């Protein structure tokens, strides 16, 4: 199907490598083994240089802290070489390029020439949300289009009806800001000032928009020079063949890896507790079917399309986030490119929020996508445990406790972005060891959460604390890595807009595996008209210095206090007002009763675990003052706990009967679909009612 205006629903299905052309076939057959091995390393060097340059020059939070994907695409648009830690871009960033090849390359009004540069951010092609913006340049040698080079990076402000790229209140995609399918923003190695002005004008932070765009371009130009040198040395045919061969080899390797796993169906339903502006229940019904050389992701039975809420995701976004798990955990020893999808199939229901259609809003899609990916971790742990237990790890925290802000900073400069603590989550517990405390973000593995001083230098905040949040992780034989909590005071400006994006305030988002516990739910505390400034001036010793202290000991802070969901549309906060956010930890692995008591004591001493959790979850008995372990009492408490479990136990059929009678209140099932199976035909007998 060819479509001139609007959306091309055909091209977005072309996630796997394009069929090999005769040119590619012949060229790839002529590539010698050693030359190919050397080529791959060189291309990786080029991509790394591009990635580092993009990071250096960009300005948005995501760029500053490393959330960058840089790659080289074949002439057909497949991403063969990619340097990134955000692996969804390893399969998603190709779609705008394929759109460009299909619609613009041969269009006489646009065309593709050396010196051109193309910008895009329409999530229909990018797969995630408007804030993910990309730029690519073509490389044409002797009249032949040999490749594209591009960078995809999250720019924290996309001009939606709320700042920060994810719009809680979006009712259609037209509330979500910039929607740009690939357009030519530069010709003859020069950016077009009129288009830059348009893009800058349509967002709240024009400077960051332009700096990020130029960063992508500068990196692409440097990589273009390297590619041209390589082609001059080895010839066009070699380059075309070797680039294609990377995809071929990767696909075969992925199939080999998958073949080594046990066949089976691994189910992991996932639930979300928000649709943006209100608390509602949604279901992602994930089944991972592994057979032979292929893994099929099946999402039948997921909640229906959300006509006016932004949690919808395009199906390709789900595939993209599956790649996060595959590239970082399962295929970590293979190149990250869309050749990996040669081992992956998928099946999506037609009417579902995991397969967005039409004009529905999608800017919250990352939340749905990370919830899905956590399901991949959980299903993956069971799929790999028997063959390679080192892969069987608990899920990291979603990261979606994101604080968004907008306004003028203390220097009078416009700004709109998110805080970097999205990259401060804990990792899941693992076989033989705990999850890493504050490990980063699982979907952006090269990113970090920066320094408080860096944020305060040009954002109008004073952090009241940023420390580990004790018990913020899932307990287990091997506990999840701890998350952090932080408190912000608006500082140095009359007011600023603050809000939140996320889910998991009503029930845990990050579930344990193999008997491990979930990481706890998280919520936001706000205080308007706060006296925090006075308390600081008075050096009041009661001021909490961690999230644990805030909720454990209490606080002398006064004002109009509110508690809210992580998902919160931005609203104005005055100077001195405060905002407290937890970014929690990873899933627990294994039964907490099997945790080494010495490890519990270590956590107690380090402040990563409370005495209550030691007592009630781990059944570890310590002297509350000295924290010395009482081994005998611990053993007795654990024996007792096991006996209690046996007493509570009941036959599965009895459990099932009880379970089947339970249902959430009807008020939160408005978007869920039929309960319990969202895809079941409506019966007219709404059990919840």
């Amino acid at each position, binding site marked *: 199907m060819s479509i001139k205006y609007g959306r091309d629903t055909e091209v977005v299905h072309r996630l796997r490598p394009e069929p090999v052309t005769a040119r590619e076939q012949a060229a790839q057959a002529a590539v010698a*083994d*050693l030359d*190919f*091995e*050397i080529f791959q390393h060189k291309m990786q*060097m080029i991509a790394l*240089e591009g990635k580092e*340059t993009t990071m*250096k*020059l960009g*300005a948005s939070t995501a*760029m500053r802290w*490393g959330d960058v994907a840089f790659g080289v695409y074949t002439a057909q648009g497949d991403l063969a070489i990619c340097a990134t830690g955000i692996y969804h871009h390893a399969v998603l960033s190709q779609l705008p390029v394929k759109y460009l090849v299909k619609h613009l390359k041969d269009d006489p009004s646009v065309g593709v020439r050396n010196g051109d540069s193309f910008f895009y951010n329409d999530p229909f092609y990018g797969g995630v949300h408007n804030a993910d913006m990309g730029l690519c340049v073509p490389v044409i040698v002797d009249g032949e289009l040999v490749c594209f080079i591009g960078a995809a990076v999250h720019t924290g402000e996309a001009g939606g009806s709320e700042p920060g790229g994810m719009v809680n209140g979006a009712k259609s995609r037209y509330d979500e800001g910039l929607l740009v399918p690939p357009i030519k923003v530069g010709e003859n*190695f020069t*950016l077009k000032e009129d288009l830059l002005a348009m893009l800058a004008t349509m967002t709240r932070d024009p*400077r*960051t928009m*332009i*700096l990020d765009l130029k960063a992508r*371009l*500068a990196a692409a*130009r*440097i990589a273009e020079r390297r590619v041209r040198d390589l082609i001059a040395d080895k010839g066009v045919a070699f380059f075309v063949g070797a680039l294609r061969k990377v995809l071929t*080899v990767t696909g*075969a*390797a992925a199939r080999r*890896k998958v073949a080594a796993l046990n066949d089976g169906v691994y189910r992991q339903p996932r639930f979300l507790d928000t649709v943006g502006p209100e608390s509602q229940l949604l279901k992602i019904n994930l089944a991972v079917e592994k057979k032979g050389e292929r893994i099929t992701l099946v999402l039948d039975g997921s909640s229906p399309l959300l006509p006016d809420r932004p949690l919808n995701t395009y199906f390709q976004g789900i595939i993209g986030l599956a790649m996060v798990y595959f590239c*970082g*955990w399962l295929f*970590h020893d293979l190149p990250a490119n869309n050749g990996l999808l040669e081992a992956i199939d998928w099946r999506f229901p037609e009417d579902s929020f995991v397969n967005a259609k039409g004009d529905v809003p999608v800017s919250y899609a990352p939340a749905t996508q990370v919830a899905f990916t956590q399901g991949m971790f959980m299903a993956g742990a069971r799929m790999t445990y028997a063959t390679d237990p*080192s892969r069987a790890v608990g899920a990291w925290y979603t990261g979606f406790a994101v604080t968004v802000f907008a306004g003028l900073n203390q*220097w009078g*400069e416009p700004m709109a972005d998110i805080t970097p603590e999205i990259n401060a989550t804990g990792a899941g517990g*693992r076989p033989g060891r705990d999850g890493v405390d*504050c*490990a*980063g*973000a699982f979907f952006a593995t*090269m*990113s*970090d*959460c920066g*320094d*408080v*001083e*860096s944020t*305060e*230098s040009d954002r109008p905040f004073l*952090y*009241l*604390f*940023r*420390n*580990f949040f004790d018990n913020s992780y899932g307990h287990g034989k091997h506990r999840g890595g701890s998350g952090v909590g932080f408190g912000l005071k608006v500082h*140095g400006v009359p007011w600023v807009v603050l809000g939140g994006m996320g889910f998991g305030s009503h029930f845990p988002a990050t579930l344990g595996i193999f008997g491990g516990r979930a990481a706890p739910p998280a919520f936001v505390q706000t205080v308007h008209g706060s006296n925090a400034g006075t308390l*600081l*001036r008075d*050096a009041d010793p009661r001021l909490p*210095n961690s999230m644990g202290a805030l909720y454990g000991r209490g606080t002398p802070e006064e004002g109009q206090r509110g508690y809210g969901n992580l998902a919160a549309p931005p609203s104005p906060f005055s100077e001195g007002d405060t905002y407290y956010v937890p970014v929690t930890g990873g899933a627990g692995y294994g039964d907490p009763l099997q945790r080494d008591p010495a490890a519990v004591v270590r956590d107690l001493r*380090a402040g990563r675990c409370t005495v209550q959790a030691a007592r009630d979850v781990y059944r570890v008995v310590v002297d509350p003052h000295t924290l010395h372990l009482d081994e005998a009492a611990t053993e007795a408490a654990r024996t007792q706990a096991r006996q209690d479990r046996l007493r509570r136990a009941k036959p599965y059929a009895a459990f099932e009967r009880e379970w089947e009678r339970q249902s959430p209140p009807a008020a939160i099932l408005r978007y869920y679909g039929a309960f319990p199976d969202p895809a079941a035909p409506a019966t007219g007998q709404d059990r919840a009612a």
Partner: protein
Amino acid sequence: MGFNVGIDIGGTFTDLCSVGTDGRIVTCKTPTTHYDLSVGFMRGVRDLARRSGLSLPRYLEQVEALRYSTTVGTNALIERSGPKLGLITTAGFEDTIFIGRGRSWADGASVHEVRDMATIEKPAPLIDPDMVVGVRERMDCHGSVVMPLTREEILEKLQTLVDRGAMGFVVSLLWSFVNPEHERLIKQVIEEEYPEDYLGAMPVTLSSEVSPKAGEYTRTMTAVVNAYIHGIMAQELSRLGTELRAASFTKPVILVHNTGGTKKVSRTRAVLTHNAGPVAGMHGAARLGSLSGFRDIVFTDMGGTSFDIGVVAGGELRAQDFIPVIDRWRTNIPAIEVKSIGAGGGSIAWVNRLMDGQLEVGPQSAGSMPGPACYDQGGAEPTVTDADLVLGYLNPDNYLGGDMPLDAEASERVIEEKVAKPLGIPVQEAAWRIRRLVDARMGQEVFNEVALKGHDPRTFVVFACGGAGATHACGFAPYIGARTVVIPAVSSVSGAFGASSMEISQVWEQSRTIKLFRYDRQEYLADLGAFNGVVETLRGQALRDLRLEGFGPERVRLRLDLDMRYGSQYNLTKVTAPSLHLTGRADVEALCAAFTGLYSRVYSPEAAFPAGGINVECFYLTASVIAEPPPLTSAAAGPPDPAKALSGSRPACFDPAEGPRATAVYDWTRLKPGHSLSGPALIEAPDTTYVVEPGWTYRMDELRNGILTRTDA
């Protein structure tokens, strides 16, 4: 007669180099004595004296300067043998060093390690969590006091650390680099409570003094690392000083800094000694290069396990966009970057069956123990050195001057079994592929390092040092695009040679945001007081410090570098200021133009965005003592014919399709300046083997350096 001595302690060998005022160079190597580095040190100095024909006391009396790059501090970090420290920080931020910006698990880890997300791990901390206390205090980004600090608060927290056994304190508070008042108050209280003349006195390290730079994680870790290795280094250096004094050396020992300069032990911060050896090597390359008119140089050092890369542009060593990782800790010192990749003679070749039988070299290494299979020390994996041996490049009976016999059959056996058979190719072709692959990787990494600093690598001259540098230089240079390679005569002791002539120099730094061009008003900075004030403060510190070393201002050269950025960019571009001070609008515009000019050149004009605002974020004032090193002895070049140095011939393979061909072998010790020859040829030196590949020529210059020139392309 006087001598300038450089000593570089490495993992395996301690290298020494003595340069006489007559220009004569004497070198030696001695095994590093890890149990007590001074043992190897003194043994080496004795050897230098002997080779110089003097008794130790007589030799040491004539030593004008003894410059030393040491790994004592690094070893203490790796072995976690430092003291129990207490960290005092701002309350609410006690976990900063454990949070480690989230991704501290990746700092100091290899590319392969960071790719496998299932097995990542943060390093064991240098300070336990229960040894960190927060004091209630707070500054904001302007250095204004938001929460005052009280003496009572300090005393209470101090007592906690003392009760837990603190042997020293690190103090690192938020924004202390802008306003250090609170850090200084804490130090004052500690010193009052634990005065120096009492046995309980404990050292105090302030982050605002060790690293007055923005970014609390790196600033704190810089202070922590410094405090952690300070005591151990002080002890070691004190012991060494005692031994040297006992042997009649009366001058102070001078330490080589990773910033590219040297300072007396008494004026050196421990953290600045980390990885100083390769930086000294870079300095040596710069010095030799300047004698031949080479100003753009890439220094390489290929050893058994790693390949070091350092960039010398315009004849100078400069820190540039670099966050040094010491062991596993991100720091903020203005060090010269030396990139180290896992490629060397011990790198293991293997066949990646998952990737369709692709050949790989590394990242695993056989190291020096068990080492390559040919070392006959139990190594059972094929390595790069095994490949060199199979190809005929190395002489099994004359490796390292005959000190280490090699087992050629073992090399053939492992390459046959582990590479040739699985790939279905002959052994010699397998060896050739191993070598080509590792050479390509090294060359490509060098290319990237030079390119990332904004230079065209193809215009650079390669200095190839280390035991395997001369063997592989012709192999990796083409991947850089380089046409000229220099193998210094001192290539196996390049760090010691470089150290012997490094000048007294130190970098004085201070983070401070100055908006030279304001985005919100679109106008240039008018009030120049803040900028000039920072420069004056740094200048005062530098001149005072050097006066204490005995150098007046007339002998001091100053250079101002600035970290600059557009608007809210995170990363910074280092620019050398056209002038030390700003005297008016024209100077501000000139500085902005210098930044935009450099930025455009490195990243393309399309990337520049002056309208986004131009900030200075950090000042670096480098103060160096002007000193001319003594000239090196050179011999006039003679006729080019090297026939008298020809020691034989052996089969060596340069193309598996052709197979081995008889290749001339020369004795390096018999080659004379002016001699030149064309590849293929092999030159056996006591410490390395030169492989002159077909398409390359070799010439020995007046300083006995080997100049390899590519002629085939």
